[in-house]
């Protein structure tokens, strides 16, 4: 969509209305597929969120929902198969091969494009993770079909086309995009943008296996090593239930400690607005917002954050947004649920104290370094 969206935006019309004429050979593209992302043995939760969305789309289309699993033979891949059904897939396409152990573009692109060409899905959804974005781009180009990145809303139109809505211009506008005359219609969605569906105990159903005809010596890129982020710095911010974040209003890097103390007290994780990453106060994976992480906690507390649209789009899914800001006119108060006009430097310690007291006696504060 690169250049397209940078154009001023005539409302619909034009080519958007020519979408009915789907070429004959695409007519037998049916069903909704979700690519299930396996990372070192674990299914990325975004895959479940997508199965939830995929289920809804498939039901609207009267189509089936399939999970696509590419991985090494073994327990973790089998576990992913079971999980696909537990999250309501009707069937699973499975490619098992040792060379699919670590993600690499070449074998994954081939496996997924082979499957698409053979079994012809109408819609193909992937997580907008580093893996998903790497894979989706080359699969869409190989198939010469359209791909809409980082969608925030997916729907089926009256005529059965996928209407994919995504933010544009840094979240100040939304646009709805169609894929004309090509199949499958591909979209990526960031983790936490869609709700996590209920898990059920649905038994394993139909699994269609595909044999990937590719051998290790055909693959140019080799994985030499994997350096894990490590437990301590491994911010799983996107999936935290409680998130506390600071912005430039915190004034100095030392004051981040106030944030960490509060997060620790209430068993939450901490994050920040973009300028703090740019200043080097916190690592990039702590950034929340359009170019950082999307979060969906039950409680989000923002201290000293103005609430720019690029920040807002990353936090809107929170159940309860609390904002602490010295400026009563800060834009964050336009979308927060509860606001406090106060100096975060003195307010954060007081808030931490009150939480400690309220959550006592089972809780007590431990300082984080």
């Amino acid at each position: 969509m690169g250049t397209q969206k940078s154009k001023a935006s005539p409302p619909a019309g034009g080519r958007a209305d020519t979408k009915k004429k789907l070429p004959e050979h695409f007519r037998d593209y049916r069903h909704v597929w979700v690519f299930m992302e396996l990372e070192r043995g674990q299914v990325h939760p975004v895959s479940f969120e997508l199965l939830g969305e995929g289920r809804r789309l498939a039901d609207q289309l009267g189509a089936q929902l399939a999970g696509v699993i590419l991985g090494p033979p073994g327990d973790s891949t089998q576990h992913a198969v079971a999980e696909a059904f537990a999250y309501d897939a009707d069937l699973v396409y499975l490619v098992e091969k040792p060379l699919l152990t670590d993600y690499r573009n070449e074998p994954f692109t081939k496996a997924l494009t082979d499957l698409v060409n053979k079994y012809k899905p109408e819609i193909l959804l992937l997580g907008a993770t580093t893996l998903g974005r790497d894979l989706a781009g080359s699969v869409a180009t190989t198939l010469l079909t359209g791909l809409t990145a980082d969608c925030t809303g997916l729907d089926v139109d009256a005529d059965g086309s996928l209407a994919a809505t995504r933010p544009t211009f840094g979240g100040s506008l939304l646009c709805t995009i169609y894929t004309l005359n090509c199949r499958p219609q591909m979209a990526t969605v960031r983790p936490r943008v869609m709700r996590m569906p209920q898990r059920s105990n649905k038994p394993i159903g139909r699994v269609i296996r595909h044999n990937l005809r590719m051998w290790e010596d055909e693959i140019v890129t080799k994985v030499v090593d994997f350096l894990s982020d490590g437990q301590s710095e491994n911010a799983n911010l996107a999936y935290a239930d409680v998130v506390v974040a600071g912005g430039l209003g915190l004034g100095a890097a030392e004051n981040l400690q106030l944030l960490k103390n509060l997060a620790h007290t209430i068993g939450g994780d901490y994050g920040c607005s973009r300028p703090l990453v740019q200043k080097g106060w916190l690592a990039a994976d702590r950034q929340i917002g359009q170019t950082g992480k999307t979060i969906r906690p039950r409680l989000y507390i923002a201290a000293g954050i103005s609430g720019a649209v690029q920040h807002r789009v990353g936090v809107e899914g929170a159940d309860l947004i609390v904002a602490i800001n010295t400026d009563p006119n800060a834009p964050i108060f336009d979308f927060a649920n509860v606001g406090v006009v106060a100096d975060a430097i003195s307010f954060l310690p007081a808030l931490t104290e009150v939480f400690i007291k309220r959550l006592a006696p089972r809780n007590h504060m431990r300082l984080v370094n």
Partner: protein
Amino acid sequence: MHIVVCIKQVPDSAQIRVHPVTNTIMRQGVPTIINPYDLFALEEALKVRDYHGGEVTVLTMGPPMAEDALRKALTYGADRAVLLTDRHFAGSDTLATSFALSQAIAQIGNSFGTPDIVFTGKQTIDGDTAQVGPGIAKRLNLVQLTYVAKIASIELSARTITVERRSEGGTQVLKSELPCLITMLEGTASIRRGSLEDALRAARSEIVKWNAAEAGIEDITKCGLRGSPTVVKRVFAPTPRAEKAAQIDTTEKTVRDVADELVTSIFTHQPALEHELSSTGSA
């Protein structure tokens, strides 16, 4: 060594305003900049050139005024600039953009030597899709190395390259071969300040300008609107939240009292949280 860097001229989105009634972007007077992510790619390309020798060609597809972005890139030290401009490219989505760029890169190869590395930024700030890089790689059949945080080494004689690639939860160290396409991660090294010599050269340099035919594009239906499977059907403003935040009154209260009231308010909104935090908190 020949390196091609794809850069895009984008509106400085920090200064973009949306017309409150028509929901169109008000571009008038909004300055354009080189897509900030592309500067990391350019800097990395210049570093590789400085170390291994060779040339850096910058390439952009855009309107004639995108020449400004290319000149800027020359002042940073790029050796050559190519502007791909043609009204047939208007309305390109990522598939059509990557087609046009890959054709131009092939033509750059014919004219100035086959590239060993093609760099793109991680993503643009206006399109924001991160798809054009992988699209180019696929079309040119180059090895694709995305989200590269660091180029650990390049062995020119063996034509191998080792990079550190950001992936979920860690860093993959990948060993691959040249030629390849790299999408560079942000926050690597910031762009150099270009020398006076480069600034003078940039002002004098001829920018290579190609239309579709000159870039070797025969099938124009793969470009622009016609070559774009995706189409924007509707642009609209997000629905604003109905009411503003409920403010905790702070007049004549101690900080402690205000905090107390806030916590009460939080637990009133989220009753289950109180219990869970008490039992699962950090104690």
